[in-house]
């Protein structure tokens, strides 16, 4: 018994529920025999991977669903061994290069060259090329991206690359110019509701109250995966009759608590309390930028209009410093102190303009 998200994941392009125009294009491209390198991008939970899988199926038929996991060992120039898990079928293979951190260039070079040099031996195969799916392409280092450049042109006859990324900002221009860009936007609330109704149909139960699923859709914020998970959880808990309360994840309520603490009192002692709470969050592996964003958006909801812009501004500033710097907690704390001082000065009516 698998989760509904996996169980009702569309398997072919015809089953997809939204972005019909895009599906038609993908079908046409897969059918034409002339398939370009592609780059799928869009927010998470919008259905990028589902679309990639469907396109592969359209290209090669059922064979792509026979997956096996292969463990490969690569050697870096400094003789360190890297273990990489590769999911592959006879027609394609999937890698997540971020697993190997800084050495992704070696993996990309070796792997792609190897594929490029082998030809498809199966005579019944529909296409002569193999497809390489690279997940989380925006975490590739610049070196690895540079290594892709010429390879993508040179070995076009044996190989196609499908990149999957959250944003194109971190990809270098030469890669973007070699790919067909496919934007997968997040579904709208109506579309998400349609999908949830479809799932309900397949599970043989009816939704009496549209407000319920609308609430779930609003809460999911364009992330269909989240919506379906919440939907299933609620169905199991309450049966979806009558009003529902969507339980927020623990860390989110915890973040909100931190936000409240900042507004209630501004003192060195409070900073220490906030710090322990932040440490708690970080030690539970919540990404620091997510923590910062969640707290900031919570604080902003509670303060005066004139403060909102400033708080967001400093959130943006410290978020960048967090990326560039090494110790995340420093920057989180610095932001907390900044917000406290802004708030206090606002309450006591002191002009802060000369302290920027």
């Amino acid at each position, binding site marked *: 018994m698998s989760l509904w998200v996996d169980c009702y994941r569309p398997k072919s392009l015809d089953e997809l529920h939204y972005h019909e125009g895009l599906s038609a294009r993908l079908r046409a491209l897969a059918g034409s025999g002339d398939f370009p390198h592609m780059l799928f991008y869009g927010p998470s939970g919008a259905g990028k991977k589902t679309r990639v899988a469907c396109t592969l199926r359209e290209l090669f038929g059922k064979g792509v669903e026979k997956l096996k996991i292969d463990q490969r060992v690569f050697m870096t120039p400094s003789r360190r061994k890297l273990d990489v898990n590769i999911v592959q079928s006879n027609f394609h293979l999937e890698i997540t290069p971020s697993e190997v951190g800084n050495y992704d260039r070696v993996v990309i070079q070796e792997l792609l060259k190897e594929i490029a*040099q082998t030809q498809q031996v199966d005579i019944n195969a529909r296409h002569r090329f193999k497809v390489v799916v690279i997940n989380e392409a925006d975490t590739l280092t610049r070196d690895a991206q540079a290594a892709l450049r010429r390879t993508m*042109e040179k070995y076009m006859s044996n190989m196609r690359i499908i990149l999957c990324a959250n944003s194109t900002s971190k990809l270098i221009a030469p890669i973007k110019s070699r790919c067909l860009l496919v934007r997968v*936007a*997040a579904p709208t609330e109506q579309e998400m509701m349609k999908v949830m109704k479809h799932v309900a149909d397949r599970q043989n139960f009816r939704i009496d109250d549209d407000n319920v699923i609308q609430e779930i859709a609003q809460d999911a*914020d364009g992330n269909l995966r989240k919506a379906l998970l919440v939907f299933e959880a609620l169905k199991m808990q309450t049966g979806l009759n009558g009003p529902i309360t969507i339980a927020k994840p623990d860390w989110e309520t915890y973040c909100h608590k931190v936000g409240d603490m900042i507004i209630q009192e501004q003192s060195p002692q409070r900073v220490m309390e906030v710090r322990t709470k932040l440490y708690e969050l970080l030690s539970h592996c919540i990404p620091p930028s997510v923590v910062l964003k969640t707290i900031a958006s919570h604080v902003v909801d509670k303060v005066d209009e004139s403060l909102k*812009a400033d708080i967001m501004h400093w959130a943006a500033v410290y978020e960048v410093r967090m990326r560039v710097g090494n110790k995340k907690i420093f920057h989180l704390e610095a932001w907390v102190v900044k917000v406290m001082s802004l708030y206090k000065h606002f309450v006591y009516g002191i002009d802060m303009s000369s302290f920027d």
Partner: protein
Amino acid sequence: MAFFQQSSREPARHAVDPSLQPWVEKYRPKTIEDVSAQEHTVAVLRRTLTSTNLPHMLFYGPPGTGKTSTILALARQLFGPDNFRSRVLELNASDERGIAIVREKIKGFARQTPRAQVVSSDGNTYPCPPYKIIILDEADSMTQDAQAALRRIMENYARITRFCLVCNYVTRIIDPLASRCSKFRFKPLDDTSTSTRLASIAKAEHIDVPESVISTLINTSQGDLRRSITYLQSASRLANSTSPPTPITPADIQEIAGVVPDEAVSRFAAALGIESNDMDVDGVSKVKGFDDIRRKVKGIVREGYSASQLLTQLHDVIVEHPTLTARQKAQSALALAEADKALCDGADEELQILEVALNVHKAVTS
């Protein structure tokens, strides 16, 4: 290693079906005369075809201006198809290019004495001067050490080997190397040469490309010919794959290029309080507070547009705006520049777009 290199070339030579070939490769210039819009460089190189002298060369310029094409075409014209493989070594960033490779492979190739010329199989005569060419493509991604190791090699074997370094940023090439080469700057292609080139390809491929599509291609690719050709090919693939084939529209090109549609940008700009000069975006009510801007930003992020692309286009809107004052434009430009830097450092996109939106809003309404 050498064995692998040999075999890795094979598939590229068996280009199976010309219709599946990328047009960028298919229409690569065959001779240096075919290279678009780089008159100065071509004029200098043409002379080397007649004389047997060639300096070390450093080609630099933005992507898609024909650097690699030029040196490949030149090498082909100098040596002809038979000698090409024994006389030219091409290395790029997808090959391992650390200091070890420089020491072994490049040095090994550089010290070989070129063989005497044999009669060319296709009947033409080629100048075939008595030196070999080593092409180091994307040389700016070579490490400093590897570049340093090249210095002496370049001088020692100058009699029988010429180097051609190809790169985007000349500043990343260490000075001692740069001073050993004669530099050629490749400038971005002007609009007319791009459009003639695109038109000729469209004609050769028998596709119908309206004028408006060509101008959109030129706008989105900004002087990068490779990019515009790739977009054109993708667009024609999409157009041909539907049945019946639909004509290519400018909107297709924008979608392929990952450009945010003009309408979305102007709606976003309007929400920030920048009045647009064309009045078809009336649907948005006037300047509002923080929460409205935040909602707008959320919407944009959910659509999945890339932040850097959005900022670039917002920049165009602001800078070319007819009524904003210079001060307002300058403040907005500052906000955009800082956000761009932050994005390069890997900052969160939503926060940065929000930051820009708030700053621009403040600048425009003050």
